[in-house]
């Protein structure tokens, strides 16, 4: 078996977001978080609930085990037994996230999706983020429209939590005194300088940043043969 690719480290880093979550709904947005959620369910997080992205709860092989239309999904958010991994067009050092528009909201330079469920997600259930192309355009000093709420604006909201941010360069958390973003691990082959250069705000970088953990042989086999045999991961993050 060839060694793990960058995309496969990203899968592992996303999967780890759901470790220890128990019987909660994993809501991944995008290919690599989806592969990560299914891998977690097949290995170290066997109680996770998965969606098919439509109206069903499914087992990893696609067998339906429940009904989850949009209206129930939105209600489930408020119940808190869900951990979503969303995307971000912009994210800042406290984890404020934007998917609504670039520029002035009144007359945007670029209209994007809209706030979607980000304001409710971030106040009700753990919300992690996945960013396939780490750059200064995404990791910005200040987001143009706060959709997902960061630590500096959550004001201690009782259910607010951002467990992790995963990018194609590394893993980030908010384990700092002021809850600003910290480099938690580097994907193999990535340097600290590379991350700093691609980040538009001051990042906390601890002494001796660990490497994102290696996939086990069994995890690599599951990713390559069972969860993503078509190779969607490599289309999102190149080797």
């Amino acid at each position, binding site marked *: 078996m060839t060694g793990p690719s960058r995309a496969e480290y990203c899968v592992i880093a996303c999967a780890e977001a759901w470790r220890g979550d128990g019987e909660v709904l994993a809501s991944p947005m995008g290919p690599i978080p989806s592969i990560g959620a299914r891998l977690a369910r097949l290995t170290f997080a066997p109680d996770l609930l998965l969606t098919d992205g439509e*109206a069903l709860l499914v087992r990893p092989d696609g067998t339906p085990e429940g009904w989850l239309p949009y209206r129930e999904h939105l209600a489930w958010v408020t119940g808190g037994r869900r951990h979503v991994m969303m995307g971000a067009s912009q994210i800042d050092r406290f984890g404020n996230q934007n998917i609504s528009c670039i520029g002035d909201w009144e007359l945007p*330079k*670029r*209209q994007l*999706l809209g706030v979607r469920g980000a304001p409710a997600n971030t*106040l*009700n259930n753990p919300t992690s983020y996945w960013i396939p192309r780490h750059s200064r355009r995404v990791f910005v000093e200040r987001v143009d429209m*706060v959709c997902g709420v960061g630590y500096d604006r959550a004001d201690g909201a009782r259910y607010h939590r951002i467990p992790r941010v995963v990018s194609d360069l590394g893993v980030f958390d908010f384990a700092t005194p002021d809850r600003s973003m910290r480099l938690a691990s580097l994907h193999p082959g990535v340097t600290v300088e590379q991350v700093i250069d691609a980040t538009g705000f001051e990042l906390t970088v601890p002494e001796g940043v660990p490497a994102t953990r290696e996939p086990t042989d069994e995890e690599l086999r599951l990713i390559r043969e069972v969860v993503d045999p078509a190779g969607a991961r490599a289309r999102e993050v190149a080797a």
Partner: protein
Amino acid sequence: MKDKTMPAEEAVARLSSGMTLGIGGWGSRRKPMALVRALLRSGITDLTVVSYGGPDVGMLAAAGRIRKLVTAFVTLDSIPLEPHYRAARERGAFELTEIDEAMFLWGLRAAANRLPFLPVRAGFGSDVMRVNPGLRTVTSPYEDGETFVAVPALRMDAALVHVNRADRSGNGQYLGPDPYFDDLFCAAADTAYVSCERIVETAELTKQGPPQTLLIRRHTVTGVVEAPNGAHFTSCAPDYGRDEAFQKTYATTPWPEFEAGFLAGDEQTYQSAAREAT
């Protein structure tokens, strides 16, 4: 029982400029597109549109019919960003009320329950509060004392939805996996027009699916429109999936050209032009 069947043109003739109009479905899924196309053929404009937005919003925005939009997103699903909506928004073509998906749901529920608002744990700390300065808050009267956003009821003059089957009196049935919010749209509006793939006898409804598929109750329905392929090009599972090729044509054709090529004639003209195009 009243026979509420009518052509799309008559349903639209009962609407008027300046109304607040709810549109069912979600993104590019089960949108009442035949009714939207009839609306585009009419002179009705100056609308406040309430929608989990898809091409319904894109088309009405491109045609300049929207004064104000209430939404949490606009998307074509397989094409994440709706190009005609984006263009309209980037030229400041209408006013936007941007709220969270869950806030939208509780606004519909408030309207359907004749409540002025419902409290939600959403919005605080986000710019939803900045761009909606009119949003009020409410404090729990119980020991917890938590403060919530009081989402105002999304009461509408009329709702437009599309389902798989309906009977002549307005009982509507969905046969796909997701009801979206169509029954709530109907209950939250003063009038509601339900288009369907096929009108069937009432007795046929429970032969097509179990009673839980009878989503829309006739007391909330004003008119029933038979519109085969009426959600085209959005999906209407299990009758048909999204017409991805045609959606791509829609997304990549300049609006005046699309309008001239597909929307100049009646619904039948649209359907045959769409068939020929893909």
